[in-house]
């Protein structure tokens, strides 16, 4: 398989985040040839305001994230659900980069994963993300979907490892499917 360079973007900022644990577990579950690296942080982005963009241009951190997205063959979001929707911070990051010329998500293969303590495992946030990704002209992988519900029992709190075998299996399947999808939708070089 061709080597694929995939960016992982976590929607939570807190250190103990289950979604960050999932993000860190991905390299160990990825197919051969897929290299995963975490995206630069959006924690310091100001809240989107066109007046900032027009007076001082895009903040440096926004360009850094956008460049990382542009340089990647694909992007995987690992995100919690806040109030039945996308975390405001993650949506704000998307809002910023969406305004850039050479908008970084255009034509970019994207896969979604979410973790939550409840039974739905973040089902609602993923469908909101799919909708925003349509506007940005990203190509979002359909299946398999990764909803890690009841997360407290599925991670090793100390090591951050995904200890649930079924979950590990789903993730491996999704990453393998994503590798195929990236190859399928990428513009032929």
């Amino acid at each position, binding site marked *: 398989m061709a080597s694929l360079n995939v960016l992982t973007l976590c929607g*939570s*900022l*807190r*250190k*103990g*985040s289950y979604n960050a644990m999932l993000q860190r577990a991905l390299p160990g579950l990825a197919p051969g040839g897929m290299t995963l690296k975490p995206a630069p942080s*959006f*924690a*310091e*982005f*100001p*809240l*989107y*305001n*066109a*007046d900032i963009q027009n007076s001082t241009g895009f903040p440096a951190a926004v360009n850094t994230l956008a460049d990382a997205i542009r340089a990647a063959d694909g992007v995987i979001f690992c995100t919690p659900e*806040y*109030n*039945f*929707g*996308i*975390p*405001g*911070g*993650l*949506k*704000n*990051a*998307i*809002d910023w980069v*969406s305004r850039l010329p050479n908008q970084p998500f255009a034509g970019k293969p994207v896969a979604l994963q979410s973790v939550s303590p409840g039974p739905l495992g973040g089902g*609602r946030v993923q469908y*909101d993300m799919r*909708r*925003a990704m*349509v*506007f*940005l002209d990203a190509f979002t992988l359909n299946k398999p979907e990764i909803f890690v519900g009841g997360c407290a029992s599925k991670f090793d709190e100390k090591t951050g490892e995904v200890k649930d075998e079924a979950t590990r299996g789903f993730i491996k399947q999704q990453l393998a499917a994503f590798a195929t999808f990236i190859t399928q939708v990428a513009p032929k070089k």
Partner: protein
Amino acid sequence: MAEEPLDALVICGSLRKGSYNAALARMLPALAPAGMKLRSAPSFANLPIYDYDIQAAGGFPPEANAWADAIRGADALIIVTPEYNWSIPGGLKNAIDWVSRMKDQPFKDKPVALQSAAGGILGGSRAQYHLRQCLTSVDAILFGRPEVIVTFAPQKFDEKTLELKDPTAIDLIKQQLAAFEKFARRVTGKG
């Protein structure tokens, strides 16, 4: 009948000065029924991006508390917002995310009406439906119809003064505010 006025807080989802939604929000006092008093919510522009570690280490930022207090102090809320990338602006969602973590969560049982203005044919409706979903999570009481969805905004606001000049939109807003006042009084038991 000398009713106590219904105190409604207006929240704008855009931060830029020339925003059509901010212009719409500024129009509301002139279009509101006599029994409704409107005021603007404090800004959420300087809230950090939500991070539980910030909350755990230093508590809620003063801006989050000020925003929450304004919501708690109001009888009802009117959210006027643009749509970004087919959804809620991240900044507005971030403000909701912050206050949703508070004890005495401010949206609980609060009547909310939604309005949006946008340049296109859908008028920001997708942001409104996402807001309905998120405000369900925080137990707000959502007003139904009429919906205020101002499509093709550049044609409906005065280019220089940013005043809303479209009679159909103005009429619809008056209808919504009048119906919302009744709704808010009914669900809060005020008057």
